[in-house]
């Protein structure tokens, strides 16, 4: 039982996205493809222990899922002609056990991040359709009610089916925008896990590993897209530091004080390789610049110091491409180290207050700069805002200690 169970689970993990993509691309219905594959996996758990695990579990699952799709279509009363068309479409490439499935996941990723799909649901859709994550896990990572997340996913899949969104790689003309949407959605998945560094609560552990899996997949499927490599490098650089972001007692450690010996060398090396491969295209972009900033931080492991001037310059470049709140605050932080608290505070003062009412890093940096300028009371006020906006108890403790030290 357990061997069959493991085989089914293994096939599910490795092949889930490939099978959903393959079925959905032919059936043009993500939800139906997922349901059919889910049924096929259940059937596998029933029959494999009795009959043995088939030689090619993927082909078996594909055949079973295809039968379910055809049965469902018949039950739903699809017109005879249309059903026949679908069957032909499905049979074209099925059957032969030697068939190697072409990887259709790229098309599925483009469908999930299609402009017609609401931006907030693109990442969840990708995580469910390509990786098979359940709605509850996705909802927890995005701090959304599980029922709401379930409804959003159902609605999005209905939209794909009803609007006839095509399963295809976009034409060269629209490719850059469409790739950006895919990469944004993957980065959003990575971001969900960022604040919860400790990973103590599995429900809040975020989706960092899943995002990196998708990042590697996209970099492989889109080898001529330097931003895909840039995104992968960015996520790997950040992920490499995960263990160093807390000390042995679970206390928060800021990047500049992290013990570089606790950074993951294999991840850093993969990040650097990805960034170099991206740079070879000589087409810089937002993710490559963000990765370059993290790469500059990583140099401390080799040189023992951080080149803040270089980092500030990279942020200036990044701000020209993508003037996000995060980049503006990051720029100010780099300026503070390179040229002092006064110019950094001037940069922060230019940001409108409405934008930062719920943005914790702005207030943490503001407190830090005011403390450096000896403005203790103002620093404490800013730190208080940052503490109130923190989700993480370790970050709260760290900021409180800083506020107390500000006098």
């Amino acid at each position, binding site marked *: 039982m357990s061997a069959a169970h493991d085989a089914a689970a293994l096939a599910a993990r490795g092949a889930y996205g490939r099978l959903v993509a393959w079925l959905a691309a032919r059936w043009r219905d993500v939800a139906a493809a997922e349901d059919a594959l889910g049924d096929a996996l259940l059937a596998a758990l029933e029959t494999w222990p009795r009959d043995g695990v088939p030689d090619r579990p993927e082909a078996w699952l594909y055949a079973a899922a295809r039968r379910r799709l055809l049965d469902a279509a018949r039950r739903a009363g699809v017109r005879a002609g249309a059903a026949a068309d679908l069957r032909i479409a499905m049979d074209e490439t099925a059957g032969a056990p030697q068939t190697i499935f072409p990887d259709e996941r790229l098309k599925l990723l483009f469908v999930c991040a299609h402009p017609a799909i609401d931006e*907030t649901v693109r990442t969840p859709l990708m995580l469910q359709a390509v990786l098979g994550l359940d709605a509850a896990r996705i909802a927890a990572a995005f*701090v*959304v*009610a599980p029922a*709401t997340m379930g409804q959003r996913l159902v609605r999005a899949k209905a939209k794909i089916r009803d609007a006839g969104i095509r399963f295809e790689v976009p034409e060269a003309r629209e490719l850059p925008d469409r790739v950006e949407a895919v990469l944004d959605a993957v980065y959003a998945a990575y971001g969900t896990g960022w604040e919860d560094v400790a990973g103590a609560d599995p429900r809040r552990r975020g989706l960092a590993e899943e995002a990196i899996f998708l990042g590697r997949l996209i970099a492989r499927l889109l080898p001529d897209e330097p931003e895909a490599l840039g995104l992968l490098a960015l996520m790997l650089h950040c992920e490499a530091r995960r263990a160093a972001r807390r000390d042995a007692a679970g206390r928060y450690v800021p990047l500049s004080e992290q013990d570089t010996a606790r950074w993951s060398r294999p991840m850093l090396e993969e990040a650097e390789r990805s960034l170099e491969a991206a740079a070879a295209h000589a087409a810089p972009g937002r993710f490559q610049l963000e990765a370059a900033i993290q790469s500059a931080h990583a140099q401390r492991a080799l040189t023992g110091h951080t080149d803040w001037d270089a980092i500030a310059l990279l942020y200036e470049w990044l701000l020209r491409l993508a003037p996000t709140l995060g980049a503006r605050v990051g720029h100010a932080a780099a300026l503070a180290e390179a040229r002092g608290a006064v110019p950094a505070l001037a940069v922060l003062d230019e940001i409108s207050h409405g934008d930062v*009412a*719920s943005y914790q890093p702005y207030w943490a940096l503001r407190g830090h700069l005011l403390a450096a300028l000896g403005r203790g009371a103002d620093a404490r006020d800013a730190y*208080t*805002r*940052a*503490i*109130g*906006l*923190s*989700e*993480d*108890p370790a970050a*709260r*403790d760290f900021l*409180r200690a800083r506020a107390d030290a500000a006098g």
Partner: protein
Amino acid sequence: MKYTILIYESDTDFKARTDEARKAAYWGAYRAYTTALREAGVMTGGAPLQPSHAGTTLRQRDGKRHVQDGPYADTKEQLGGFYEIDVPDLDTALSWAARCPAASSGAVEVRPNLPM
């Protein structure tokens, strides 16, 4: 739309309110959270509550009044206070609730208020 964030605290949390070693961190975190809610312009009300043993529960049945010391339900985590916030949607309400100190030690429940 108005939402109420109900704060359920463990016994350890309630003890932290008066524990010499921990009370500064406890109240500091809540003061900071309240400030962040106020400064963001989303807080419309709320109050901290005394521990559940200070509560009195009352029921009227068949003309008879039953009065009982303590909370209406004896659960591991007890209602310790609430905030009322005014935000555009549930997602925003949940993102504020996630920052409540009790989210990482006890539990917070977000309920939409019924408009009256």
